[in-house]
């Protein structure tokens, strides 16, 4: 696809028939406006934040199979343990865009951020980004600069911490079983 002129484009990846554009956070708003106007990605479908803290710890993650993939005819194959590729920074913020045109083109704009690094708000490009960005702040602690109403959306206003981060505990209670005292 001709996304080469996207402002701030750092790299393009194609996987699972999806296109991911990695963009410099400083030029995110320009890139989004470019994609909306030049490539007709009129709709912002989703903003998903991911925390990669602890990514790739051996023993937990990693795909077991042969170098050619999983071979159905060799069920005992315990080939390579392929550890996942390392990620550049801790957080990724993914903007899923959709072109409401025949062909249903989709693209993912991805920015990589450190802990505390802010991202500019795209509310000026798509007003529907409002609540998605608030949720990214609330649940992941990604500060959004220029957001008109940067308050917590889902958790209580006075909640401390950002629940979906990997270093935030799951919480809950230990389950007591009847019969044990």
């Amino acid at each position, binding site marked *: 696809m001709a996304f080469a002129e996207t402002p701030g484009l750092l790299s393009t990846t194609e*996987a*699972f028939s*999806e296109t*991911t554009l990695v963009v410099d956070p400083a030029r995110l708003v320009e890139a989004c406006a470019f994609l909306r106007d030049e490539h*007709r990605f*009129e*709709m*912002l*479908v*989703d903003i*998903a*934040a*991911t*925390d*990669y803290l602890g*990514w*790739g710890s051996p023993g*937990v*993650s*990693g*795909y*077991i199979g042969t170098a050619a993939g*999983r071979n*159905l005819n060799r*069920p*005992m194959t315990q080939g390579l343990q*392929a*550890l*996942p*590729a390392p990620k550049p920074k801790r957080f990724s913020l*993914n903007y*899923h865009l*959709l072109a*409401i*045109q*025949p062909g*249903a083109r*989709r693209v*993912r704009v991805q920015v990589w951020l450190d802990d505390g690094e802010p991202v500019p708000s795209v*509310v000026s490009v*798509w*007003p*529907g*980004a*409002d*609540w*998605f960005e608030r949720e990214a702040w609330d*649940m992941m602690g990604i500060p959004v600069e220029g957001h*008109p*109403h940067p308050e*917590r*959306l*889902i*958790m*209580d206003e006075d909640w401390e911490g950002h*629940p*979906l981060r990997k270093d*935030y505990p*799951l*919480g809950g209670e230990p389950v007591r079983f009847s019969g044990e005292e």
Partner: protein
Amino acid sequence: MATIARPDAKDPIYDGTRIPSPIPTVLEVDPAVKDTDDILTVNFGPNHPSTHGVLRLIVDLDGEVVVGVHAKVGYVHTGFEKNMEQKSWWKGITYAPRIDYLAYQNNELVFVLAIEKLLGLEIPPKASWMRMLLSELNRIHSHLVWLGTAALELGAISMFWYTFREREMILDLSELVAGYRMHTRYFQTGGLAEDVPPGFYPECRKFVEWMPKAIADYDGLLEKNEIWENRTRGLGLLSRSDAIALGQTGPVLRASGVDWDLRRDDPYLYYDRVHFHVPVLPHGDTYDRYRVRIEEMRASVEIVEQCLDRLERLEGEPWIADDRKVVLPPREELHTSMESLIHHFKIVTEGYRVPEGEVYVAVESPRGELGCYVVSDGGARPWRVKFRAPSFAALEATATTVQGAYIADLIAIVGSLDTVMGEVDR
């Protein structure tokens, strides 16, 4: 096909944009008027019969006219996404339907499709046809509950009993297939959890024959009802460009004149092999959203019928993929094959491993585009699961649609956006 009005083209619903500024999701009262005694601030919810779940709206009223609205959500936040990161892939499928608890089959479907996309699994045709059938039955179910409750809120109380009568028929079909009425957990990675039981197809045919008469009943009660029309026509206007800018999908978008349906335009399962009509209406008001959903119920019945035609010819076909690294082997094999025993053990205890990657899969749920963004690190548990909830975007349109409405209309408009708070808060 879909055409987007360019900014300079005249939008038939209203000109320009009505999205409030600077905060698109909060309608604020003019500051000069705000502190006078004329403005009454009312708290709507979270416990209120007309908010389709626990939605809290802080409404500023000037007399009976709504001049300010601020939606507050989070009252049923369950921490789904964090819980799903701790459970193996197939245990996560149990969590998915409880997110949007009216369209539970679509939630399961989108999560399972995302896992299968990462795995690159081939799904047998019988499973895909059955998944389509159940998803469409679920669409009818969701629209029935919506219609019953939306009419109940506006005072057409008897609609509730009519729609729930058909809802019970759909739940009977669910119970016949999967053993449980709601949150059936019938979709499994690779296909279906079990074969379609005998006797299902005739029962489903009976339902398909009955349903058009039932929809005619609902139309008879509401379509030309003068009170219903007065309470819904011309209210809650949302123009095409505003709907797209706010990320609306589904019936809300189609009632604003945008011809967009993921089943037809970005097909998944076998939607490209069935014929169905996609209702699109131009006025962008509450009445049109109601009509779109009624027509969608009719279209879903057509799809269910076509799925039944195909399924009846697929008796005896496999209902789940054959990949033993992901799918449990049949129990008879466990007695004779060592490899099957090991596979069974590994899949049940550790869970199957899904290759590294990130995918975004979207389906057309009764509320719009339900998307699932999954990141896998190659392990037996998801790294990140995020559900893109259509009601989340629909609630963002509250401030735009209720401008100038009376407080009674606020109920009608928020009801017509068909939000389910479970998926808004996740």
